[in-house]
Each structure stands twice: as C-alpha cells, then as structure tokens.
C-alpha cells in the first residue's frame, strides 16, 4: 500500500529550532503542509552547526529557551554571519514578558509569536516574513544573494 499527503512543491526552506520534541513534530508537520522544506534542530548547538554548514534558509523559526545556546545568543550570532544576517527570524517562545519580546526584537528578530500559538496565525507571520525578505532581496541585490546560495 502506498499512501501519503498530496505532493506539494516546496518553495521555501525553513530552519526550525525547537527543543520540545512534540512541538517540533507539530511545527514540522505544519510547515511541510504549507509547502516548506524543514530543517529541524533540537538545541542551540545543532542550530549553530546548521548555520555554519548549510546555505541560508528562507526563514528561521526560533525558540528562545534552548539547551546549550539560548535563542537570544543565536539571534546575535545569525546577525553577525554574512550569509545569514538578513534571514528573517520569527521567534516562537513561551516568554511573554514585554522585556523578553523587546530584547529579541532589539537583537534582530523579525517577529515574535508567543506560545500557545495559533497555527494559522504563525503560518501567516512566516509568510509575511518570507515575502518581506524576498522584497528586500529584490531591492538590495538579487544577484548578490543568489550568489550566496
């Protein structure tokens, strides 16, 4: 017997950094259904390895409370890496205090979604982040960014 979801053409790649295995499964499922290719990293160190070793993705979905390397630190590092510095980062965190949101945005996060999240709202925010990023790339040198891939 062969079965599966209807095939969809993945047009964007997303890096999901989430240490909760169950939330990771859920995000992976949601994003795949929405047409993303998904890279999953279960902690901050694995996320660093991805960033060091693969070409930039189209969007990063990032938890803040991560083992080994915090989400805040990852945002700082990503914004320092030439190839990755413009990749949109959507934070998905249980931290709901204003100062946590402000800190993440000040460090360079593109958007901030708190847990528990509404799946369709999260997907909409990811779409917006990707669209804005593509518009930015269009304005600031498609060729240069394409060369990085």
């Amino acid at each position, binding site marked *: 017997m062969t079965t*599966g979801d209807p095939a969809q053409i993945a047009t964007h790649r997303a890096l999901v950094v989430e240490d909760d295995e169950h939330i990771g499964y859920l995000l992976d499922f949601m994003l795949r259904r929405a047409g993303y290719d998904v890279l999953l990293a279960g902690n901050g160190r694995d996320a660093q*390895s991805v960033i060091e070793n693969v070409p930039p993705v189209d969007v990063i979905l990032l938890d803040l409370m991560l083992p080994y390397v915090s989400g805040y630190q990852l945002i700082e590092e990503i914004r320092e890496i030439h190839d990755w510095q413009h990749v949109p980062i959507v934070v998905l965190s249980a931290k709901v205090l204003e100062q946590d949101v402000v800190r993440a945005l000040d460090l360079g996060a593109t958007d901030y979604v708190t847990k528990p999240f509404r799946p369709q709202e999260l997907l909409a925010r990811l779409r917006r982040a990707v669209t804005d990023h593509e518009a930015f790339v269009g304005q600031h040198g498609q060729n240069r960014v394409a060369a990085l891939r």
Partner: protein
Amino acid sequence: MISCRRFIIAALCIVALAGAPPSVSYGTDLTADIDLAISQRDFVTAVALLDEHLVEQPDDDNKRFKRAQVLGWMGEYSLARDGFDGLVKKHPDNVDYVFGRARILGLQGNDAEALTELRRARALAPDYEAIWQLQFQLLSRQKSADAKLKLNALYLEAERKFPQAGWLIKPRDQTRSDWTILAGLTFEQLSRDLPGWNRQFLEVSSDSGDRVRYFFRASRYERFDRSDSTIGGGADWQLTRNWLAGFDANISPDASFQANNEYSLHAGRKFAKNWVADLRYRRRNYDTATVDFYIATTEYYFGNFRAAYTLGLADLRGAKVSAGHTITLNWYRNDRTAFGVSLSSGNEAEAIDAGQVLVTSVRGIALTGRHALNDRIGLHGWLGIHEQGDFYRRQYAGMAVSIRL
C-alpha cells in the same frame, strides 16, 4: 569534531528529506505500518491506519494513546483532547495518558488545567523529567506573581533533581528586586575567662538571575580591646551552564589583628550525577606575613540533602603547610527552611596579633539554619564550638536577617 559535524549534517539531511512529501511502501502488517507511518512523519496515514486498527481492536488503549498523540502533532488539538480525555477517564493513574492530556491542554492555552494535570502526573512519576520540563515551560509563560514564585521554586527543585538538564534555564525573577541586604552579628565566648569577641556585618548582593552576581560587604570585628573594620566585594560569573568562576577582595584599613588585605579566586564545575567541585585560591597579607590558602571542595546532592568535603591547605610563607578538613551536611527541608551541620579538624593558620600568624591544631562543630519568613525576609542563625589547640575554646552564636529590597 568534523565527523561529529558530518553526522549532524547527515541527520539533518535525513530530517530535511523527511520533510518532503512522503512516498512510502506499506505492507500488510498493520502495526508495523503504523510505526512506519509515524517514523516517516506521515501523520495523516498514521491516523488512518490507527483508525483501521481500532475498528478491529477497540480496546487497544496503547494505540488509542498513539492516535491522540499523533493528532496533537497534526495540530488537531480538539480531537487529540477528546482522545486523551477518554484515556484518562479510563486509566486515571496512567502517567503517560495524564501527561499527554496536560500537553494538549497546554497547546490549547488552557494552562491552569494543564498545570493541575502536571502536578498529578508528577505525583504518579516524580522522576519523569519531561513532566518537569513541560511544567517549567508552562510556568515560564505565566504573568502572575504567584506563577513566578512557583517557577523559581520549581527551578531550584529541578536543579537539584536534574543538574544536567539542558532545558533548565534559570528564570529571571520578575517579582523580586535585584538586591538583597544581609545584616547580622555574632557573639563569641572564650574559655579561660578571656573577654568575649563580637562581630557585626552588612552585605549587599545582587540576585537578578543574570549570569553575574555581585556582592559588597562591610564588617567590624572586636577582639579583646581592639577592633578592625573590613570592606570588600566580589562577583561570581556563571560562565556556562556547568562552570562558575568568581573573585573577591577585602581590605582592613586599620588592621590590628586581621589581614591588611586579602583576595581570592575560585572556579567551580557541576558534574554528572549531582557532583560539584570547586577550587579556590586565597591570599592574606598581614604586616609581616603572607598566607596562601588552597581550598578544594567537593559536593554531592542527593534527595533534599547536600554533603560536602573541604580540604584547605594554608601555606604560611617560611613555615610549614598546614591542612584542615571540613565535612558538611545540609538538609533542605523545603523551599523556605534549611539546616546544616559542619565538623572541622586539622591545623589552622590564624593571625593573633599584628604581623603574627599562629598555626595550631583546631577542631570544631557548627550548626546553621535559615528560614524564609516570606518572599522578602529571611532569618539566618548559627552556633558552634571552636577549639584552638590549648589556647582557648570559643563558643559562638549569631544571627542575621536578609531583606530583599
């Protein structure tokens, strides 16, 4: 390192491939197909196969549990919740079912009920780390002062129980000030009808939950008819999750029996299975003598207890090295109250007069206790006996009050 990195990249590639639309050949073994579908994250197929299985075996609650779990991974919270509700009703003492229900409640944003379920799950399985992790996550996103207190208490408890847990991140305490004042005094009664000693101190420390903790102190020590005043301060850094380092420095501008100045450096590390080690170097400079101390402490945490052994070597320049040993047992009765007992024995280098350092055999016992009256005010007390060779026996008692500003 390279091979490790390659492994990670390979694993991530597998994950990425799994992200592609699944195209899997299933066989005739329904159970195996269910496992295969789940492992391929082909959740739609998995649920269909689980439904097929449950038509044949409606009493298979393990598969019913798996179905509820997969529905949760698909974001079908209401359907998943229905599944877990039924399972928990039928098996109220099954920790996996209770925990699964709590997880779905949390995903639905029903944190109050989720936390109630988690408390029940923890009572069923106190060592089930994932339960603590979810409880920590849910409390982290609560805004109430009560929740913040519970989060801090949970953190302290979890830190003792799972010292290597990667998910355990010290919460920033939103309900408390960053600063605490500790003020106290000690009275010391000496044998041989010698006049008593006494000491007063004031310490201010930061406790912001950040990686650095600062402290400043001032004290006055009266011995016989003389008194010394000391001021100092220092800091401790949480360098990584397992490494801590710090320093402190003190000066006594009018030293008559204390060191003119002293400073120390230390580094500590948490190890697996609740072991902690700390190494400290301290130097005390007197008018005519310098004493170097090398202090090693190892700690072990078990249940609500802490056991520690400290070896201290004192190197008086120009004299032989002396060694002292201390064993300590602490009992953390609950979040508010703790007691401790220490036994010490060995040799000690002590300044007895300006520029004079005395090395004598010492032994002693000390009892300590602390109790938090509420979230802001804590009481601390200590008493003990210290024998300094044949010179004297010192009985002492002291108390302090801590106030979080």
